[in-house]
């Protein structure tokens, strides 16, 4: 295992699941290399527009220092790349409701990640799968050096300094849009209020004239709890003699159980020599 290349060369095409390995290394002088495992993206159930089945390449084991730009550079010889999606682990597309924003982005995946690369043509995927470079692909070249370590952290610190005006402008824009949406929704709701649909049902909304209960889980739980309490109040406890007897018996059983538990605990402690003072 100390010399992975030899063994690996033999098994190059036998990786289960139809993956192909592409060796990559960080720079020319690197002593060792990682492997990218690539395969066409294939799922039975879900078809999503951002990952067209025939044109998407799934890339596993992308090292932390290999970012989108870098991946693009490696794979662009196979064909034109439309988009790259980096993820923590393989899985279905998550709805990305935050629009592209400079300041309010979803956090980037950290550490090793997987990538979904969409080519313009299906041939790109096939080409990528046939990529068997003799030497490992170098990620950080003289033309495109990758920043890691101190350099990267300093530039990250620089990036964390933001332009206040831009931020303010973006916030304002977002809030205007948001207010507009809210207002529209309110208007629509108010328009619907009190107007029966074709079957005669009237929809109750929170923008109506009379205040209504919010439709939340918490509220419904509260109502249920209140109902239960009401019912419990009506119930008669220890009314019949047998009820009385039963409660008494249960109480004693409870006490006995407790005593047994205590005894067990003590036995356990004794077993652990918890009572030897010194």
């Amino acid at each position, binding site marked *: 295992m100390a010399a992975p290349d030899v063994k690996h060369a*033999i098994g190059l095409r036998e990786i289960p699941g139809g993956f192909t390995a592409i060796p990559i290394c960080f720079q020319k002088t690197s002593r060792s290399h990682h492997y990218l495992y690539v395969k066409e993206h294939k799922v039975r159930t879900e078809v999503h527009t951002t990952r067209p089945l025939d044109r998407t390449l799934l890339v596993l084991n992308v090292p932390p220092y290999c970012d989108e730009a870098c991946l693009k550079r490696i794979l662009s010889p196979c064909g034109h790349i439309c988009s790259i999606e980096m993820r923590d682990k393989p899985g279905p597309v998550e709805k990305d409701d935050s629009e592209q924003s400079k300041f309010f982005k979803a956090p980037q995946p950290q550490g090793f990640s997987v990538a979904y690369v969409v080519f313009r043509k299906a041939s790109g995927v096939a080409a990528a799968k046939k990529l068997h470079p003799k030497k490992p692909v170098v990620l950080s070249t003289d033309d495109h050096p990758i920043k*890691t370590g101190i350099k990267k952290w300093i530039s990250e610190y620089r990036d964390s300094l933001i332009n206040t005006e831009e931020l303010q402008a973006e916030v304002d824009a*977002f809030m205007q849009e948001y207010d507009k949406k809210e207002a529209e929704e309110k208007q629509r709701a108010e328009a619907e209020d009190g107007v029966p649909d074709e079957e005669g049902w009237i929809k109750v909304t929170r923008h109506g004239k009379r205040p209504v209960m919010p439709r939340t889980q918490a509220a419904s739980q509260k109502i249920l709890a209140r109902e239960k309490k009401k019912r419990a109040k009506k119930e008669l406890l220890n009314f019949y003699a047998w009820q009385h007897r039963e409660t008494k018996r249960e109480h004693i059983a409870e006490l006995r159980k407790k005593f047994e538990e205590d005894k067990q605990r003590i036995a356990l402690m004794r077993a652990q020599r918890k009572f030897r003072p010194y």
Partner: protein
Amino acid sequence: MSCEYFPDLLYISKKNWSQIEELLKEVILSEEKRKKIDLFVQEVTTLLSSVPETKFTEIADQSWLPPGIKVPLLQIPFTVKGRFRMAPPRSLNVVGSYPLGTCTKPDVNVDLAVTMPPEILQEKDYLNQRFHRKRALYLCGLAHHLLCRPVISSMHFTFLHGDYIRPILLIRSADKDLHSVTLRLYVCIPADFFKPSRFHICRNNIRSAWFQGWENATQEISEPPTPHYNNGILREALIEAHLTFLNAALADFPGSKEGIMLLKIWLRQRKLDQGFGGFTGFHVSMLVAYLISRNQISPVMSSYQVFRSVLHFLAITDMTVNGITLATDPNSLGPTLSEFHSAFQVVFIDPSGFANVFADMTTNQYKQVQHEAQLSMQVWDNPNFDGFHALFMTTKTLVRSFDHVFHISCMSRLQRACNKMKLFSDIMDHNGNYVAAALPYILSILQRGLGERISLLIPVLPQTQEWSIYTDPPQHKDMGLLSFGMLLNTEHSTNILEKGPAADSVQATEFRRFWGNKAELRRFQDGSLCEAVIWDGDSLFEKRLITEKIVKHLLQLHADIPESSVNYVGGLLDRILQVGRKPCRTGEEESLKITHAFDDLNRKLWNLEGLPLTITSVQAAHSSLRHTQVFPPLPMNPDLSFFQKEKLDNSLLPLEEKPCPAYIPALQVICHMEGSGKWPQNKEAIRRIKSAFHIRLAQLLRQQYGLICRTAVNALDVYKDGFVFRVQVAYHRESHFLKEGLTSDGMVHYCNAKEKEALKLKLETVHMPLLTSVLNGLQQQHSTFGTTARLAKRWIGAHLLDACLMSDEAVELLVASLFLHPAPFNTPNSPQVGFIRFLLLLSSFDWKNNPLIVNFNGEFSAAEYTEVKNYFVSTRSNLPAMFIATPQDKKNSVWTRESPSVQILQRLIMLASESLLVLERQLSAPCSFQDMKVVFRSPLDIYDVLIHLNPKRVPRQAQAIDVPTVTFSRGALFSEAVGTKAFMPIVEFDPVSIFLKELRDAFGELALFFCDPNGGLIIAVLWKPQAFSKQTFRASHMNARLVEIGSNGAQTVPNVEAILEDFEILGAGLVEKLEIQTEKWSI
């Protein structure tokens, strides 16, 4: 009858009952063993009754002694009149705890009293130690007779209770089952040989002429009384009488015997029964007998009730002032109570009316017993506390219990001290034992000098070791260490002023005499002119050492004990917290400065005009603002030439080629805004609004107060008085909206997927400020809390555990529990003892079976205690390894949910018990004082890979345990003068922690990463045990792995070579080299 006095005395829970029963089972001797012991005693007794007779010789002529056997007594002066010969003993009786049935395992002592035959005694043997000499010789004779008997495996001499005049012979059986049994041979006088009145405490029985070795003394000088000597002889004569008395007294009281055993365990756990003047089992039995005679113990009482009655009696009775007596005969010729008080410090008169049971005890020793009794009563009365464990199962060693401790190492110095204090007659009374003679005087001087600064001062005399019968007895100077422990009174202990009497008063000269050259005349603000002593101390660190200065000064002045012989253990650990620049500070002053800056910012925020919503609260949420930051930041100005200037927002940037800039933490401040209908009901919109608030706040702070501010998306940094505060706006309903989602039928519900995010927000904006304010409150009550917590955190950091592996807040809560629930100890009043107790808690607490309940402000009621405990027991498997409940957080243990893991907790426990062992040994043996940092250095041999970091890039390098030899200029000006403050310094920039995070993100599945956050230059890597097992190929588990084709198909293994290189790539510039310690992966 006493039950009427203490109604709760009858109450004891079932659980406690069974615990006590179990405890007693552990210490009571079994019947079988008793039979074996009886047999052994029988054999020895038969042997002893056949001691052959010898001829009379002078005492001083010891040529008849069997060769090799040395007399177990210091015979000074050697010559003494009288004749001696060996003869069979008059009687042999088993006395002490064994026949009473109160002796306890594991160290069983069976006392065999050998009464000397009267025919070898002479009429005047009471004089000048003659009896003692004869006894020692008699012991030698007996030892010789017993030599080479098959039933006996070994024989040693020792001094009973460290009393140099009472040698005894220790005999151990050859039977393996009796290896823990010691037969103690004790030679005594026939009870009726001397008249008791001869030993009246006012009489003299040692002639100074003989003792001083004067040849032709004049008979005219008045001889001083020798009460201790007299009491000693009486004690020997009364041994059997006392046994008969106790047997009679305890006969009808079955509970009392077990009660005595409980008391003996209690005493032993507190080390009260050890050394000269200790509170032994005999004293306990006598005390119980006394209480029986006073009807305070009734026959129906159980063992626990007897135990409690005795503690109660001790707690309320001061025998140093009001002695008690067992003597019933009103016509006795014995001395009066006041005569006893003038001769002894503690008085408890025995049934004969002549002897004092507590003759050897000093006032301070008695006060300690009393103090412990009071403390234990309090513990037991607290229904929420596991009193059993505190009372009987916890060992209270000297360094664990006392705030400050000091040792006098050179015992021969005490002889000079006696000369200086003119204690000739006392030395004579104590048969030349100058330690025992000097002790009361030293104690009274210290007690007076320390006055209000301490609440208790106790001496600890060493246990005398046993020695072989072929070697000479140890000298007084070989006694070992004389140790003292102090409980401080924090209100006064750090006073720099000792105000004396007015200059013209009579007491002024006495004051000057007492304080020597330290006393000076001072004019006070009210115009009075007084004698006073001023100790210098600028910082709290120095002030904590004032007691040390007083002790050393007084010992030097009055007892001629030089400073070099006094090893004071008080502030040795504090030095860990010192940072380079100011050698005599440990950070308390800095913390205060930060608090002031925060208070000012707080006021300014409240007074801001022009905010659309009002601020409802401004809360601190950083450890620096609750006095628990290991190294609180110092106010700093950036040295502009050191940085790259960024015009945008007036910020500075680090330069790559320069050393990493000094680390400035951002001090979190949570600023809650009022709730209003204007807040949007959508999490994205709330984030935007919060950003808008940050921008607005920055603008206003800049305009109205001229502060330098920098806005980030989710916070606002304010640079003020050299510190950087990170203000975060919070809206109390945000966490609700974070969790919210819509069900398919349109109902709003909380989705669990977002739970984590919401919880994190809640932790930051709700729990953290709460914790900060609660701990700040604790700091106000106990000023040592902060420093103790910092020491504890420093220790955890030094063992390469950073906040990701062991949460800082959990450590703070652990330390807080030491202050809130100190039982069976006192509240720690010095960082050192607090730290030791922290180690003790960590190593001895049963985390698996018990929740740690930290009851801030006593908010938990007894019912809530049970509720938490029951909850814990029923849901143990779902709870974190370390469960801490506080009134603010009953069931979630928010601070330990992420860390520590079971493995890390296990390691912590191991580290703590090892450190405790080493530290206690170091602190109680002054020869190893030089290096207190031993317990702060972590062994590195268990790790697989060490990543060495470049010190230039480690901003907190100077905080390392061992001060680095090479330091770097890091662009910080510490001058507090207002410089050009136009630029925001670099905040929260620590390459080491960023690197650690990257490593954990990338390789967290394969390895654990350890690093000391305070200046650690090594990141230690430990592969997880299962990391190198081969796995089948799975698309979701391919990170940093490679495929290997073997006989059983394709399998994946970690790509170690590449991973190791990744360490270097990810930390380019920071990593100096890798050191590979094991080759675990090449199986």
